[in-house]
């Protein structure tokens, strides 16, 4: 449980003045994640929206030590920082207890970065990897990623005269892949529920080993909606079960929020222009199949939780 009063008194670890879009969820996620940390923390970040917008030389928005090296290797880079920490601590050259948090977009995490993430998790470094998941390669201009949901439009899977349905493939379930690495703490969260996200970060950091949180981040430019709707859209993703929020602690699933009334998927899809083609008559079947897919995944998640 995060205490809002106490959180408000904390010093900001990410400052304003950066160049993220109005309404960007990534900045919100970064601030909230870092507000969950009490002691010293070192941040590593993959190339992407968050990194380029917050570190335009000679300025930086980060008040923590911050390292960016390349796109596909944030986890590997962090594993080096963490290894240096363990080595120097063992030799008595570093005294403090320091935590390590890596931020990567879905591009740098699901696709080009999956190898280095997998390796770092398998090696059991004590680091928390946060995927700020806006479901496409946003920094390079809204191209499809392995996290893009079926039916979404992106610039590399656009609708045209022949292909009318947007992305044809289902998104990868990276969270399940992380669970399969048998790491102590895995979770899904959203920008839009600060208490849930902050509590999860605190739990993850308390673990003596690797942890991973996949945070859905509505992107107003890439998804096409009004900037002030970011957090509400995040909550809609949970209420429609399009993006369930849950934790997996040592392999045991616990769903964080079960919607009292599961809302129809179209309530999540309608406000976003990346889905507007789905409401054309020729896409009626596709639209129905997307609801069916969400329902099936939700049922499966409920079953997995029940088994535990």
């Amino acid at each position, binding site marked *: 449980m995060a205490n809002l009063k106490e959180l408000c008194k904390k010093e900001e670890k990410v400052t304003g003045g950066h160049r993220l879009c109005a309404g960007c969820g990534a900045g919100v996620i970064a601030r909230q994640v870092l507000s969950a940390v009490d002691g010293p923390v070192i941040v*590593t970040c993959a190339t992407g929206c968050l990194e380029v917008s917050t*570190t335009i*030389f*000679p300025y930086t928005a980060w008040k923590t*030590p911050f390292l*960016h090296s390349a796109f596909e290797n944030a986890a590997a880079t962090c*594993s*080096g920082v963490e*290894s240096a920490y363990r080595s120097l601590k063992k030799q008595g050259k570093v005294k403090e207890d320091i935590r390590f948090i890596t931020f990567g977009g879905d591009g740098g995490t699901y696709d080009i970065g999956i190898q280095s993430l997998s390796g770092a998790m398998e090696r059991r470094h004590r680091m928390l990897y946060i995927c700020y998941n806006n479901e496409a390669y946003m920094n390079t201009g809204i191209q499809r990623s392995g996290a893009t949901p079926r039916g979404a439009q992106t610039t590399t899977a656009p609708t045209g005269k022949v292909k009318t349905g947007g992305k044809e493939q289902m998104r990868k379930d990276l969270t399940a892949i992380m669970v399969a690495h048998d790491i102590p703490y895995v979770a899904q969260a959203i920008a839009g529920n600060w208490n849930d996200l902050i509590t999860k970060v605190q739990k993850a950091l308390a673990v003596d080993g690797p942890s991973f949180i996949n945070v859905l981040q509505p992107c107003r430019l890439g998804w096409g909606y009004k900037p002030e709707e970011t957090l509400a859209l995040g909550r809609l993703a949970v209420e429609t079960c399009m993006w369930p929020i849950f934790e997996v602690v040592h392999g045991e699933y616990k769903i964080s929020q079960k919607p009292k009334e599961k809302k129809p998927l179209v309530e999540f899809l309608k406000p976003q222009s990346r889905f507007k083609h789905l409401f054309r008559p020729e896409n009626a079947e596709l639209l129905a199949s997307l609801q069916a897919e969400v329902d099936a995944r939700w049922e499966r998640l409920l079953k997995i939780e029940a088994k535990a």
Partner: protein
Amino acid sequence: MVTKTSKTGIIVAKTGNEAMAESMRQIAPDVVAAYPITPATEVVQIFSQFVADGIVPTEYVAVESEHSAMSACIGSCAAGARTMTGTSSQGLALMWEMLYIAAGLRLPIVMAEVNRALSAPINIHGDQSDTMGARDAGWIQIYSENSQEAYDNMIQAVRIAEKALLPTMVTTDGFIISHCLEVVETAPDAEVKAFVGEYKPARYLLDIKKPFTLGAIDLQDYYFEHRWQLAEAMRNASSIILDVAKDFKAKFGREYGLYEKYKMDDAEVALVIIGSAAGTAKVVIDELRAKGVKAGLIKIRVFRPFPAKELANDLAKVKAIAVMDRSDACAGSYAPLFNEVTAALYTNLTANLPKAVNYVYGLGGRDITLEHFNDVFSRLQGIAKGDKIGEPLTYINVRI
């Protein structure tokens, strides 16, 4: 009869890989992040045993690829840890973008690079195409002729990298030196430890009281200045390398420069060459000298920064030079070392430029013998007397 250069020196038999691993044991870096690849594998394998036996305090990170190896090294070095790694060929090629990043971030990472041919075709044997291919990355490059040099270069590399704030790679020819047993004089642990000293970075991520951002994005208004600073650091590295070599000679008795001059004082015909084949060539030079031929060679030790001015001065009086490349740039013109040498000559000498011809040899571990060097010197003698050069680039010992 093996004469020691230092009273406290220890004479041992080591392969190139063992010599490099031994130097790493004595340097005892804080972190080694590495991925195995033939023929460099043994360096980190032997080192892993040191870690398992508690002989070194090093954290060994068994990363899942070479790209991650250099990424982890960057993280570790930026964090404030003395960091080392090792690789060859495809491994170096895989970490190519990270080499540039390590240099751009001015991180003094030291790498043991066992020279191996680049695919395709895949070949695991020795040539210098891998490190030659990385010559523009901003790394200091020090090439070793034999196991002794490999051991000595690794130790010096730590001081050089940390003073110049440039990552540094030390090479050996794959299999030829890496797997070949030679007599090596090592130094006692305490002397090596004293020579390399403590790593004291001006700023580092684990210094949490002084947070900073590393790896920012530069727009058009800053990138050029940062890259100029990097190039300037490389230019300044020569004097640092010579200073460290001076101290190395004082402590261990062995002398190093930017290159080695072998019988060059009055040489009329000479080779410029890198690596183990210099040893073979020296035998031929001795034989020629006994016959009265004024033959010599310059063996490049420091390829980056390239000692252009000094080399031009030392080659000024030579009549005919053969530049021996153990890599081919597929340039459609000439090979890498030839381009560097002739640019140096053309830029620094005002008149009477020596004639220079290029040879590509030894790709993929193809042998080069005493006969081949004799042929090269015969041609050089002809050119020195006025023979036409003919083909500027010749391939040695290959079926065309």
